[in-house]
């Protein structure tokens, strides 16, 4: 507990950051969960939730752009696969606090550092899935495509990428849901997000539960959105299943 208090103290937190208890007279009396209080004070969650959405959307989008580029490169030059996997694996194994510390001297406290760290964590899954999606395109489909006179570029955009969509979106789903969870740590480097409503007062059950429900809902909504996007993008899979 002391470690994050230290980090938090290093930033410019509002004066009442740790003073939430002052508002929860209802809780003080009952000592447990009080949904009524949470509903009354739901406005307090609006800004952290919006921040949280940014902390998910921006890293996943940036991670996708980087991983997509890496996957396309590795798809053309197979020898790049091992180093790319190695780098993204190592990034993934660095504990988040350690990564924050590494980045602090470079980017300082704040949202930028959080976004860079969260982006790094999405790379593994996004690169792996995009690359394997491209690799799993059946050889005979590529052979037929080339044999009919598709150039490598046409083959990539018209055949390989469309067929990799299910795996790419599968990667985006995992990356998105895990980033929803991971982004709560942004609070420790003053990056905002829903962590603001959890860690400074982790013993405040009503607040923690309310935040948890919002996080779950966020993860669920984003996941469903991606599932719908995939279904729209891959009509051919539905007919294959319904056969």
């Amino acid at each position, binding site marked *: 507990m002391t470690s994050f208090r230290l980090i938090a103290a290093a930033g410019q937190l509002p004066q009442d950051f740790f003073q939430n208890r002052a508002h929860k007279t209802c809780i003080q009396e009952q000592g447990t969960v009080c949904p009524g209080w949470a509903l009354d004070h739901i406005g307090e969650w609006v800004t952290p939730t919006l921040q949280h959405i940014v902390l998910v959307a921006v890293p996943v989008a940036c991670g996708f752009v980087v991983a997509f580029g890496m996957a396309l490169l590795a798809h053309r030059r197979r020898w790049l696969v091992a180093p790319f996997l190695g780098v993204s694996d190592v990034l993934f194994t660095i504990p988040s606090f350690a990564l924050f510390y590494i980045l602090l001297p470079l980017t300082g406290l704040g949202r930028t550092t959080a976004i860079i760290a969260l982006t790094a964590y999405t790379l593994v899954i996004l690169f792996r899935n995009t690359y394997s999606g491209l690799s799993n395109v*059946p050889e*005979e*489909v*590529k*052979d*037929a*495509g*080339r*044999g*009919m*006179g*598709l*150039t490598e570029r*046409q083959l990539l955009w018209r*055949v390989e990428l*469309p*067929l990799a969509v299910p795996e790419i979106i599968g990667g985006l789903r995992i990356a998105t849901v895990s980033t929803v969870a991971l982004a709560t740590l942004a609070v420790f480097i003053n990056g905002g997000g829903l962590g603001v409503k959890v860690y400074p007062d982790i013993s405040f059950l009503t607040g923690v539960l309310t935040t948890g429900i919002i996080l779950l809902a966020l993860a669920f909504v984003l996941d469903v959105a991606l599932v719908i996007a995939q279904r729209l993008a*891959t*009509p*051919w899979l539905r*007919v*294959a299943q319904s*056969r």
Partner: protein
Amino acid sequence: MAIVSAPKDGERESAAEAAAVRYEHVTKRYPGQDRPAIQDLNLEVPAGDICVLVGPSGCGKTTAMRMVNRTVEITEGDILVGGTSVREREPAQLRREIGYVIQEVGLFPHRTVAANIATVPELLGWPRERREARVHELLDLVRLDQDFAGRYPAQLSGGQQQRVGVARALAADPRVMLMDEPFGAIDPITRDQLQNEFLRLQGEIRKTVLFVTHDIDEAIKMGDRVAVLKEGGRLAQYATPAELLMAPADDFVEDFVGADRALKRLALMRVRDIDLWEAPLAFVGQATGEVRAKLEGAEVPHALLVDSRRRPLGWLSERDLAGDLVPEHPDSSPEPVLDLDDVMRDALAELLRSGAQYAPVADGSGVVAGVLSIEIIAEFLKSPKALTEEHPAAERPRD
């Protein structure tokens, strides 16, 4: 339906677009391999012909075929398509002029049948209406219902997928077709059907086709000419199916063609190609004496009762001839009645199936043309003379 086994030189007009393919001292070496996959291959495929490349696995037949559209690069030598070197062409451009059908079909799973068929027209920038009209036309050509246009490949059976594969390869009216074991992964019944349909199709479109198979029966059935390759891509023999069966160039070819090559010859000719026995005909109400006189010198022991238009009614037994006049209803039926256009192999099968030693043969309008017997076929198989005649299109299916 028109008879597909049309004279080879009579249909050259529709083959105007087809291009001859010529291998000139083609050698292919793969890096890291001592022996070349193809060695000094010389081959000329006339425009509009089906040339089957056949041989055991590892003989380089697929490699030989793939060098035509440069999906495999030539190491030495050259291949000319319509007189132009493929090495001088940009590969993607070249491939759009060459139809490509592979065993695994390789349809794009994410595109509808119509979109799959329109692949090359789309690459060539055909306007939408023209593409749609072409898809419509090709579905008809490969005998798929128009409903298939909007379906995805996963909704099709293997045979239907390969029909789409053939339609897709034909979409931009290529000058040459490359077919790599196109029916190899399909069940025997459907394969036979697809082979026949392709031959029918070829009768209409007259493309230059390079067809790869490891199956000598398929090679004999499909090929106008057959190139037998041995290991190392060396050409063992390049001949018409009839020549191949009659005079294998060496032990390798003889072995590869199989011990039953005499029987295979039967698949190459039709009943009309052989000398039939004359049928001792009898008419209702004719004096039996006349009939008996006719039977004296005949090869067939019984007289064949025919109607006034000489269509067979049945065989007359001794009892039928006991009276003065030939009766209206003979003891035995004329079945099986063979057709002049039956493939010999099928005619023999029909005889064996019915247990008959001989059967009447009728022409297209049902008029008796003669009698075919197992004895005739046996004599034919014994005499090499009959085999010197070429019957290139005998197996062509007819409707």
